[in-house]
C-alpha cells in the first residue's frame, strides 16, 4: 500500500537482524528519543586490532522505522573500522532505508545512527543537524 511501509521495512521490523546483547562486548551505548519514547541500546565487539567491528547487536523498542533502521544499519557495520563508522553520513542511513522520511520522523530513522555514534565515540552523541529540533 504505502511506500514507507513497504515489505522491506516491515520485514526488518517484524524480523530484525542483529537483535540482542553481545556478551562479552567492547563498546556499549544506549539512547532514546524522548518525544516518542523510542529506546535503543547497542553493543559492539571488536577484532583483535581494536578498530574493526567483529560483531554488533541492538536492543530497542519503538516504531517500525526506528527498529528497522537499527536492523538495517547494524547489518552494515561488521568489518568496518571505528573511524569509518564515525565518518558515516546520516543521509546514507536514510538512503539505506530507501523510503521517504518526513521531518517529524527523522529522529525515528536516525536513533540507531545516533546510538551507534555514541558507542564508537566514547559515549557522546548528538542528533545530526538535519534531525535537530524536529
Amino acid at each position, binding site marked *: *500500500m*504505502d*511506500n*514507507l*511501509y513497504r515489505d522491506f521495512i*516491515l520485514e526488518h*521490523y*517484524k524480523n530484525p537482524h542483529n537483535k540482542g546483547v553481545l556478551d562479552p562486548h567492547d563498546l556499549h551505548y544506549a539512547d532514546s528519543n524522548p*518525544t*516518542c*519514547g*523510542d529506546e535503543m541500546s547497542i553493543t559492539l565487539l571488536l577484532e583483535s586490532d581494536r578498530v574493526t567491528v567483529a560483531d554488533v547487536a541492538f536492543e530497542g523498542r*519503538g*516504531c*517500525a*522505522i526506528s527498529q528497522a533502521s537499527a536492523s538495517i544499519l547494524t547489518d552494515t557495520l561488521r568489518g568496518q573500522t571505528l573511524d569509518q563508522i564515525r565518518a558515516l553520513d546520516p543521509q546514507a542511513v536514510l538512503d539505506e532505508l530507501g523510503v521517504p522520511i*518526513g521531518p517529524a*520522523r527523522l529522529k*525515528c530513522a536516525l536513533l540507531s545512527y545516533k546510538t551507534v555514534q555514541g558507542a564508537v565515540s566514547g559515549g557522546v552523541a548528538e542528533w545530526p543537524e538535519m534531525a535537530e529540533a524536529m
Partner: protein
Amino acid sequence: MAVETSKQVIPGAFSGTALRGDFPVFDRPTGSGQRLVYLDAAASSPKPRTVIDTMADAYGHHYANVHRGIYELSEDATRRFEQARKAVAGFIGAPSEREIVFVRNATEAINLVAYSWGRTNVHSGDLVVTTQLEHHANIVPWQQLTREVGAELAYVGLTDDGQLNLDDFEAAIARGPRLVCVSAVSNALGTINPVAELTAKAHAAGALVLLDIAQAAPHMPVDVSAIGCDFAVLSGHKMLGPSGIGALWGRRELLDAMPPFMTGGNMILRVTLEGAEWNTVPQKFEAGTPAIVEAIGLGAAIGYLNALGMASVREHERYLFEHAWAALHEIEGVRLLGPGDPAIHAGVISMDIEGIHPHDVATVFDSLGVAVRAGHHCAQPVMDRYGLPATTRASFYVYNDLDDVTALTDAVRACQRLFGGA
C-alpha cells in the same frame, strides 16, 4: 457516497460535507491520490475561504500601521483591527473589548500572565495549582514561575477515564492557592472539565482562575462572564483563524493593576531618558506593531463560526464523536482514552492501537489520506499517567462528516492488517 452523506444534516446542526466546499485545502490532492480526511483540528484547523480572502483584502487594500497614523489608510486599518477585538470579546462573553489583549497564541497569553501577574502576586511559599491534563503551555510557565519565586506548584490528578480527580482538586484548593490554572477542554484526551464549578470552588478558597480555552472556544459556546473566571487564553489558529494571533482575556481591574510584560512602542504614554509611563489596557500589553491582519483574520473566523452558531458546532462534533467512539470501541486491540460520556467529551479521540507505535499509525493513515496526530500532544504528563509514550489522536471540526468517521475506522483496520504479523 459523498453525495449521500451530504444529506446527513444533523437536526439543528449543519452538513460537514457541504462545509468542506468553504475550505480550499480539501481541493488539494493528497500524495496517495485520495481525498484529504483532516482529523487534526486540535493541533490546528484549516482556514475557510472567507478568512483567507479577508486577509488578502486587508493586506491588499486596508493595510497600514495602526493606532497612530493620521491618514485614511491607517484609520481604516485601525478600525478593522479594533473591530476584531470587539469580535473576540463578544465571542467569549467578555464584558469589554478593552479586556482583550492580542498575543501570538495561547502560550504567549499564559506566559504574559505568569510573568506579569505571577511575578507580582506569587511569592515564596505560595501555592499555584494546575492539573495533570494540561497542555505543556499551562504547565511549564508555572513550573518556571514557582521555581523562580520559591512557590509550590501542585497538580490535580486524573481518574482512570481521564477526568480531573475532584477529590484531588478539593484538597489542593483547601490549601489556599493564589491561582488555579485549568483547561476547559483537554487537547490530549478530549475531556470537558466542569469549569464553572471549579471556578466557583477556587474563588471560594480565595484563588484566581486562569482558564485555558484553546480547545474549548473553537468547539463550543464559551462565556467567560458566566463561568466567572479571571483570565482566559485562546489561539486563533485552532478556531479557523490565522497563525500568529491569539488572545488573553482578563478582568479589567486585574489587567489595570498588572505591570507590563514586554515593553517598547505602543504600550507607553511617555518615554524619557529616566523612565516611561504606561499606556492603558489593552495597549499596555501590546508592545510593538501587533499582528494587525491576523487579528482581522481572526475576526473573520469568528464571523464564520457565529454564522454556524457555536451550539450547532458543538452538536455537530458531539454527533461525530458518538459515532466514532462507538465504531472504534468495536475494534479489537483499540484502547480509547478519556471519558466515554459524550456530555463531557469533546470531538477529540485519543487511542492506542495495540502493538503499533502511533508514529507508524500516523504514517500509514497518511498514506490513506487520513491526517491524524501521533505523539504526546504537548501533554507528556497525560501520557505518563496512562503509561503510554504517545497516542494516536483524531479530532473533529465543522468540515468533518460520517464519511470521515468511516475513513478513520477503515484506516485503523488497514493498519492492523498491515502490522498483523508483528
